């Protein structure tokens, strides 16, 4: 290995580490089961399979989510090796993203909260007899997203962990503040109530013996509370029990789409329509998953909104556009996987599922944090490799098994909830073999039920609960180091801590702006129809505004070609040099769904990487210069030709040129074009 070739070192490290991971996943072990000693069992692969199957199962079933399931299985993992336990639990989380889409498409109920937006277009597709392609799109999109985000985790986690190793207590405290603030921002409903729930969670997390002084806090003389309230107990009560009672409040009604699911595979036109949304959804989902407070839910909402803005078929959204299935489904899978990055590198959970993973690591005696990557190499990389293996299993198993999942949807809830309740009770009881834990679970079930009825989100509370002791510990240490000076968190000597706190303040400030608050409320409304209505209302208000300004700025030299589609959709393409295409080349083409224009520059980039890999001594700098040199000719060609390609694309899709108009921007051009088209017709 040449030390001077930095690119080579970087790639080689990933290659070596992933190799280590795959070795760990496929490792054969000797196990004893029912008294029989078995040798050469690929135990980790089996656990991965169990995890993804279980995940799909609970994803398909509405009324039970990954949080309750993982909480239920936590005590079970006690007997497993750490790698096998984490592989299985991770499989449940991303498996649930797969399963959730099936219910969303066939029943119009989100099997999983992150597939709420999939209902909008997926169910419409099923009604048009295209359930097969919708299901296949969801599965294939998720698979693509899973592969890419596995690579992203492998690439970004090690450098981030290296940074995190330098974090002191003040940085950790500020990071946790940022994480909690983001959790508040992403919760539905009132912000004040969400903050209050976080505080309540933090306080409940403090119950038990104080580490520093040994004082028993808030225990009321109950000896079972000396170790604090178990996280599993709280999670099962607040999510599991409260969910069951909430479901029983409503009368059961479920209409399953009975039409037979036939011709699963998407057609050629479908392929042409889904590759772009899948890639964009994956990219956006991966980015949003890394954010503290992010994860699958945020990713799917974000991807659907983006797709509505940029898609060629934006006007068909909500009426069965396949893009509306591909984008959120790939995004939620990507987000589910990249949300492991903050967990693995910083030891900070970004959502309730990740908080449970921390619980799982603690059960195994592993303190989550940046040191895990160096000290438990096979655990870290085994888990990442298992994500890829698990995704492959999901796509291979799920398409043939779809019939079975549909059957499962016919199981009535009155059989389901006693089973769930029994497993939860057994799980909680087995943690410490004390009935008191079940009593606490019931208590938190009641609290969770009341909270839901009072519109207080339980998710931020759970995050606060897990972070409570950590926050107090880091606050104490930071204040001890600074000798009681509160400025330690915002002083210029601590730029990272300062940055986290400023980011939290900005987030809180932004979210209290009235305009954004409305949008947030619309985006997070559970009800798909209400959400669409709110979005449509926002859209029509804007188009009225544009309509009013249409004639105002006709007096420019910017010329636009206005096209009209067969279904009445109107688009405008500017003439001349396209600056966006010049600057962003492949990314621009990706946003415009131009396949070859996207594929060629990205392939060129990969070839460059290969050259860098083979060449003797390329530093990052040389690689940067080479990329720049490659980009310039591409940029010039793209800038000149981009608009021609767009027009060609519209003509290929039977769009007709209406007129050339002058206008300042695309919106007014379309408005004027629409008026002209109406006048001629």
């Amino acid at each position, binding site marked *: 290995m040449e030390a001077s070739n930095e690119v080579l070192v970087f790639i080689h490290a990933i290659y070596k580490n992933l190799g280590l991971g795959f070795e760990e996943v496929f490792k054969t072990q000797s196990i004893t089961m029912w008294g029989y000693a078995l040798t050469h069992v690929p135990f980790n692969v089996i656990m991965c399979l169990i995890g993804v199957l279980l995940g799909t199962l609970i994803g398909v079933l509405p009324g039970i989510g990954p949080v309750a399931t993982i909480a239920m299985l936590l005590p079970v993992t006690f007997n497993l090796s750490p790698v096998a336990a984490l592989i299985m639990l991770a499989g449940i989380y991303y498996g649930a993203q797969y399963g959730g889409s099936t219910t969303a498409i066939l029943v119009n109920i989100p099997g999983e909260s992150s597939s709420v937006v999939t209902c909008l277009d997926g169910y419409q597709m099923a009604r048009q007899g295209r359930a097969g392609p919708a299901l296949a799109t969801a599965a294939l999109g998720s698979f693509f997203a899973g592969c890419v985000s596995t690579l992203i985790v492998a690439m970004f986690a090690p450098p981030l962990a290296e940074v995190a190793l330098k974090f002191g207590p003040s940085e950790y405290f500020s990071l946790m503040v940022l994480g909690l603030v983001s959790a508040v921002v992403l919760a539905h409903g009132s912000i004040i109530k969400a903050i209050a729930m976080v505080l309540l969670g933090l*306080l409940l997390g403090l119950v038990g013996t104080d580490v520093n002084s040994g004082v028993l806090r808030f225990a009321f003389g109950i000896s079972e509370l000396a170790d604090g309230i178990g996280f599993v107990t709280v999670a099962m009560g607040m999510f599991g029990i409260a969910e069951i009672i909430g479901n029983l409040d409503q009368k059961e009604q479920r209409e399953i789409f009975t039409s037979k699911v036939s011709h699963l595979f998407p057609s050629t036109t479908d392929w042409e329509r889904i590759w772009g949304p899948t890639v964009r959804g994956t990219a956006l989902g991966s980015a949003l998953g890394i954010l503290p407070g992010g994860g699958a839910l945020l990713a799917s909402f974000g991807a659907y909104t983006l797709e509505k803005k940029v898609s060629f078929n934006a006007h068909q959204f909500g009426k069965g556009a396949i893009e509306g299935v591909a984008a959120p489904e790939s995004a939620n899978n990507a987000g589910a996987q990249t949300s492991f990055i903050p967990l693995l590198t910083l030891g900070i959970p970004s959502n309730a599922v990740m908080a449970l993973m921390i619980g799982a690591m603690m059960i195994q005696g592993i303190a989550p944090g940046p040191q895990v990557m160096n000290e438990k190499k096979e655990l870290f990389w085994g888990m990442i490799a298992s994500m890829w293996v698990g995704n492959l299993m999901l796509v291979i198993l799920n398409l043939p098994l779809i019939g079975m999942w549909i059957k499962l949807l016919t199981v009535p809830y009155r059989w389901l909830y006693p089973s769930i309740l029994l497993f939860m009770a057994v799980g909680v009881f087995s943690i410490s073999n004390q009935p008191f834990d079940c009593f606490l679970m019931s208590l938190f079930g009641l609290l969770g039920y*009341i909270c839901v009825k009072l519109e207080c989100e339980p998710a931020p509370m759970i995050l606060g609960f897990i972070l409570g002791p950590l926050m107090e510990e880091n606050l104490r240490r930071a204040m001890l180091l600074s000798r009681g000076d509160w400025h330690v968190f915002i002083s210029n000597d601590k730029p990272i801590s300062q940055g986290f706190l400023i980011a939290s303040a900005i987030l809180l400030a932004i979210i209290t702006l009235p305009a954004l608050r409305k949008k947030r409320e619309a985006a997070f409304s559970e009800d798909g129809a209400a959400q669409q209505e709110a979005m449509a209302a926002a859209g029509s208000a804007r188009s009225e505004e544009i309509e009013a300004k249409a004639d105002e700025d006709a007096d420019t030299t910017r010329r636009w070609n206005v096209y009209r589609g067969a279904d009445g959709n109107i688009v405008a393409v500017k003439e001349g040099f396209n600056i966006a295409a010049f600057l962003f080349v492949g990314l621009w083409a990706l946003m415009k769904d131009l396949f070859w224009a996207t594929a060629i520059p990205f392939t060129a980039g990969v070839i460059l990487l290969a050259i860098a890999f083979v060449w003797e001594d390329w530093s990052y700098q040389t690689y940067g210069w080479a990329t720049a040199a490659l980009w310039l000719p591409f940029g010039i060609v793209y800038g000149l030709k981009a608009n021609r390609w767009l027009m060609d694309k519209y003509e290929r899709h039977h769009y007709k040129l209406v007129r050339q108009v002058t206008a300042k921007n695309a919106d007014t051009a379309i408005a004027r074009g629409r008026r002209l088209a109406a006048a001629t017709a």
Partner: protein
Amino acid sequence: MVIRNPKDFWAGLMFMAFGLAFVAIAYGTPDFVNELFGGKVVPGYQIGSPTRMGPAYFPVLLGMMLAILGAIVFFRSFVSQIVGEAAAVKLPFNAIDLAVVVGVFVVLTYVAKWINISNDWAMLGSALVISVLAVAFRPDAKALALILASSLAFAYLLKPLGLVLASIILIFVCAYGGHEFKWKEVAILSVVLVVFSVLVFVKALVLPFPVCPSFIDNCPIR
């Protein structure tokens, strides 16, 4: 003063109650209360200083913040723009019911102490009393009460009655809380679930649960 938004009203009250309770327990009761009762009612923990934070420092800080936020939510409920159906609290019980439930637990705990039996029986008794009360007087809260009661019953009966009987009790009680209750269906369900849980939890995962009631000496399944 009219409560325009009951959801905020009760949420605010709940947050204030939690916040103040944590502050009171951590900080101890204030001096004038102590003087009134002639001694410390709640002793509290050490506060410490910012440099060396005592066990009370962080909880008092958080509890006060929670109480203040609770107060904001509480007072907002009188001027809220969200009114009517969207703000209505749809809980199947009221504050008095909740007080009765707490009362049942407290009274039975003291009774158990008085007649010198294990507190577990007090818990079981409370679960039974509350279930009967809910079924008789609050049919809307039947699901809520029976589901919570069934998990309590399971927990406190597992050691004396064993996994098989405790599971059957849990399944029947919580199934009775649902919309439809069919004897045969629930019986089949409980047989399937009992076989499954004995195989998985006791045989495969080796959880240390008694399978048979403690009064049976030689249990066939171990």
